[in-house]
């Protein structure tokens, strides 16, 4: 979670700036935010009221870009390139980094060919350089590149901004986990009780046998 710690300062800075800017200055801020090499979270900035005011103005494309960086992928940009402004190289790199995070949300093992297709990368070398230099060194993912099976095994991936509809899914997963853990605790307690009962029964049985041995010895 150190990635979140790094984010916190940057987010604070940009949220404060966004709160006092409007129109062209705000568009400039969106460009800065979506080009910043260490920032991969945008929902706090997106929720600043001034941003919503851009809707319907000549700067509404900046708002669309910020939404794209908060929730979208490079693939989304490609299929909507006509209605979105051209992206700088920094923005393209960042959107591709965010796309890796989105792919890592559903799979732990990312196939090279899927990644190359999703990120518009032409060869394995370029892909591995991107994953190492732009993703692992940036601290947004940790994992292992498996050349033999041409896949990237993700051990850790930073969380992306959540779309509102994802919240229920997350709550559902957490409550499943909670139920599983509670059930496990209950099972363990049951087992402990069972073991205690069995141990009492065994002790009682052993006592009966010893008493019987004593009796037989006396009668002999």
């Amino acid at each position: 979670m150190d990635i979140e710690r790094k984010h916190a300062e940057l987010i604070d800075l940009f949220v404060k700036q966004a709160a006092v800017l409007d129109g062209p200055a705000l568009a400039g801020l969106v460009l800065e935010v979506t080009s910043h090499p260490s920032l991969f979270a945008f929902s706090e900035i997106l929720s600043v009221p001034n941003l919503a005011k851009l809707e319907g103005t000549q700067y509404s494309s900046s708002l669309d870009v910020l939404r794209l960086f908060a929730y979208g992928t490079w693939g989304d940009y490609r299929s909507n390139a006509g209605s979105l402004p051209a992206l700088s190289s920094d923005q393209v790199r960042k959107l591709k980094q965010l796309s890796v995070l989105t792919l890592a949300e559903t799979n732990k093992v990312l196939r090279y060919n899927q990644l190359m297709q999703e990120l518009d990368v032409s060869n394995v070398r370029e892909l591995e350089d991107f994953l190492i230099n732009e993703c692992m060194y940036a601290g947004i993912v940790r994992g292992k590149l498996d050349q033999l099976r041409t896949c990237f095994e993700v051990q850790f991936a930073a969380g992306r901004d959540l779309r509102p509809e994802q919240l229920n899914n997350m709550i559902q997963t957490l409550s499943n986990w909670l139920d599983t853990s509670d059930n496990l605790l209950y099972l363990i307690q049951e087992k402990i009780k069972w073991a205690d009962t069995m141990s009492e029964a065994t002790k009682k049985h052993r006592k009966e046998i010893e008493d019987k041995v004593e009796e037989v010895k006396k009668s002999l």
Partner: protein
Amino acid sequence: DNSLLRQVSSLLRRLPAMESEKFQDDFLMEFNDTLLMTYLAMFTNC
């Protein structure tokens, strides 16, 4: 708290921790080995 949501989302994504076939095979093998040992120990007791 968006930061917390992102952290929870990152954590949940790591579940299930292990789901490969090989893991299941190894796990069941360990299970059977231990059951066999328990059985043998019970014999030794008897």
